[in-house]
């Protein structure tokens, strides 16, 4: 029966995709027939969440292997899709195009950083961790270095990084759920949480895998359809290859309208709500000087190295049937991620042009403010405090620096701005929900698994039977989800800030212990422990030193609070190397570790843990 299910996957997801397309068409017809925009939004979110919950229920399991690693039988390409959904969070879906829209080239460091890290994953870690055969990332650290303290340190880093990340995702699900369903944000957060738990609770990794594949399909359709539609409307049916002129045109328009940075005092006087920005950075221009290049590169380093240390991504490669397919699966993951990421700059370009180019009917910059305020979507989003107009110079004309938007609005409002039917806006909301939910699922599961497997089973109660372990795992899932939702409802940081912090935490504490664990036989337990504690402590201390909400000191060399991993990771490396060299002894334990690593390094044969 199981084998049959795996063989039938292409058919099942083909049918699912067809069904989803039929649903979109049905909604389009309903819109023509007069269904209100609000009902369409609710239908989209409710229908997709229902499907995910159904998949979660169908994938329920009582087996440890299925719960922790989906039975290690997820085919290469499907694991790629699931990883892509796991990876692309609410921030990628909702905020990335908006970030590029306002930040231009400088912001696109995130695009490079969030893709290139997969090369580290594939060449340094994933195939070896798969051969090792662990259930969780701390499981590898604990077995490779030996001892409960090393395992515990890894659990701490994992929980800190993933929890920071998950609050941002639950925040995003809450935002989308509250808008689509028309409930307050605080309630939306809990609706989002329940949806997330329905996907993961009964089936663990197995359920999360199959819902993530379904979520990937929804989110990629929801992202690409508006981009291609808008491209076609402007005469560029394949925008990725054809927007050179548009990018150049934006440059001209920037010169014409002028890129003005508003003074903080002006913003305050005009009452611009916090978190809204105006366009003040060049779209395609590279900022001059070595410092700007360093800021770009240091952000890329943090995001790439962080990618390779984030446990919810690494654990996806524990689910493939073989080492070979783990490697291929990384490549497929990045391919599926590429489809969305390469479209984000195109979406930003098209959407910016629609507002700025006076030759287009949709433009608003340079028009009279009274006219702009009469536009329906401007009214709607102003009422939601997501856009704002401030007439600084009092001339009654909307200048580029007088138009404010929240970054997320770029993706969510673009269909309306471009005059696409409302069914597309509903689809985009469902896509954003899918993106945020799939990442939150992966993260909550990574935390709960580390606590239930590594902390409870391996450290506290090694004699616990299977049933008890799985009950503990599920109880932890609920507790962590609820804690995440509680923190998210307090809205401590922006979504993007929290995401970048998660990467920095992971990179400070886990990257070198993982990589050296595979590649350096002489890395010792003491070295790894010193590295994890020292790296995390140094990174955190620096974050507190520069963090705008903490001590807010001037950063060294432009290393601000988004880049504190640049401090943490080298401290971790240096400590780990020095302490390892001091403590390495060529004794029986070192020989056993050496033999274990030799076994890890060849793909063939049973997993290392499976041989014991």
């Amino acid at each position, binding site marked *: 029966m199981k084998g049959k299910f795996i063989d039938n996957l292409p058919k099942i997801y083909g049918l699912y995709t067809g069904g989803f397309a039929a649903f979109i068409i049905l909604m389009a017809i309903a819109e023509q027939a007069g269904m209100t925009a609000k009902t369409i939004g609710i239908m989209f979110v409710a229908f997709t969440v229902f499907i995910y919950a159904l998949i979660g229920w169908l994938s329920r399991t009582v087996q440890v292997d299925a719960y922790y690693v989906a039975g290690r039988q997820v085919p290469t390409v499907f694991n790629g899709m699931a990883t892509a959904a796991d990876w692309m969070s609410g921030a990628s879906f909702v905020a990335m195009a908006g970030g590029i829209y306002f930040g231009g080239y400088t912001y696109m460091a995130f695009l490079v950083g969030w*893709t290139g890290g*997969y090369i580290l994953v594939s060449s340094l870690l994933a195939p070896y961790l798969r051969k090792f055969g662990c259930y969780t990332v701390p499981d590898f650290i604990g077995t490779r270095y030996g001892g409960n303290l090393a395992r515990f340190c890894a659990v701490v880093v994992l929980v800190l990084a993933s929890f920071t990340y998950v609050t941002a995702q639950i925040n995003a699900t809450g935002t989308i759920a509250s808008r689509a369903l028309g409930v307050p944000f605080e309630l939306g957060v809990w609706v989002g949480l329940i949806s997330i738990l329905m996907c993961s609770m009964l089936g663990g990794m197995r359920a999360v895998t199959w819902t993530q594949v379904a979520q990937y399909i929804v989110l990629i359709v929801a992202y690409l359809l508006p981009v291609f539609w808008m491209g076609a409307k402007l005469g560029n049916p394949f925008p990725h290859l054809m927007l050179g002129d548009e990018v150049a045109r934006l440059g001209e328009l920037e010169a014409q309208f002028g890129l003005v940075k508003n003074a903080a005092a002006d913003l305050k006087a005009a009452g611009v709500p916090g978190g809204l920005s105006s366009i003040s950075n060049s779209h395609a221009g*590279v900022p001059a000087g070595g410092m700007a*290049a360093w800021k770009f590169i240091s952000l890329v*380093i943090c995001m790439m190295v962080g990618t390779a240390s984030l446990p919810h991504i690494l654990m996806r490669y524990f689910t493939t049937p*073989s080492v070979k397919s783990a490697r291929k699966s990384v*490549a497929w993951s990045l391919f599926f991620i590429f489809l969305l990421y390469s479209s984000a700059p195109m979406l930003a370009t098209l959407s910016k042009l629609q507002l700025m180019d006076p030759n287009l009917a949709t433009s608003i910059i340079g028009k009279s403010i009274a006219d702009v305020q009469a536009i329906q979507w401007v009214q709607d989003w102003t009422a939601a405090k997501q856009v704002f107009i401030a007439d600084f110079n009092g001339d009654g004309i909307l200048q580029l620096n007088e138009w404010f938007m929240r970054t997320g609005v770029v993706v969510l409002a673009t269909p309306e701005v471009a005059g696409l039917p409302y069914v597309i806006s509903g689809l985009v909301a469902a896509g954003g929900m899918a993106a945020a939910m799939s990442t939150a699922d992966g993260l909550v599961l990574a935390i709960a698994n580390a606590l239930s497997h590594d902390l409870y089973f391996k450290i506290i109660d090694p004699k616990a039977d299977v049933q008890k372990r799985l009950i503990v795992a599920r109880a932890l899932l609920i507790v962590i989800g609820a804690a995440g939702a509680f923190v998210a409802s307090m809205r401590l940081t922006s979504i993007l800030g929290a995401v970048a912090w998660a990467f920095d935490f992971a990179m400070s504490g886990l990257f070198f212990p993982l990589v050296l664990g595979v590649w350096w036989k002489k890395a010792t337990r003491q070295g790894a422990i010193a590295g994890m504690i020292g790296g995390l402590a140094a990174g955190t201390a620096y974050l507190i030193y520069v963090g705008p909400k903490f001590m807010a000191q001037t950063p060294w060399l432009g290393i601000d609070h988004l880049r504190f991993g640049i401090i943490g990771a080298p401290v971790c490396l240096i400590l780990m190397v020095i302490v390892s060299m001091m403590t390495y002894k060529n004794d029986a334990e070192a020989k056993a570790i050496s033999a274990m690593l030799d076994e890890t*390094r060849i793909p*063939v044969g049973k997993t290392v843990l499976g041989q014991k």
Partner: protein
Amino acid sequence: MSNKEKHWDKTRGLMFITLALWFFFGYVIFMFGESLNSASFLGYPLAYYMCAQGSLLAFVIILFWFANKQEAIDEEFGFAEREDK
């Protein structure tokens, strides 16, 4: 040198080549972003293009190339898995 050692030697070599390519597309290009942007590709300024698509695409290609190359190495030394799906 034993079979295992030779296999690991080649594997490590491939890892370094892969990381060199990664370093080039991830960092070296963007160190010269300012001057690269005066060149153009498909009508886009070059540094903008690399950042929006070029490097991303290069990473995808490198990953598939790496996976195939490593499979060939495993095959060569008889460490390839057989029971694959």
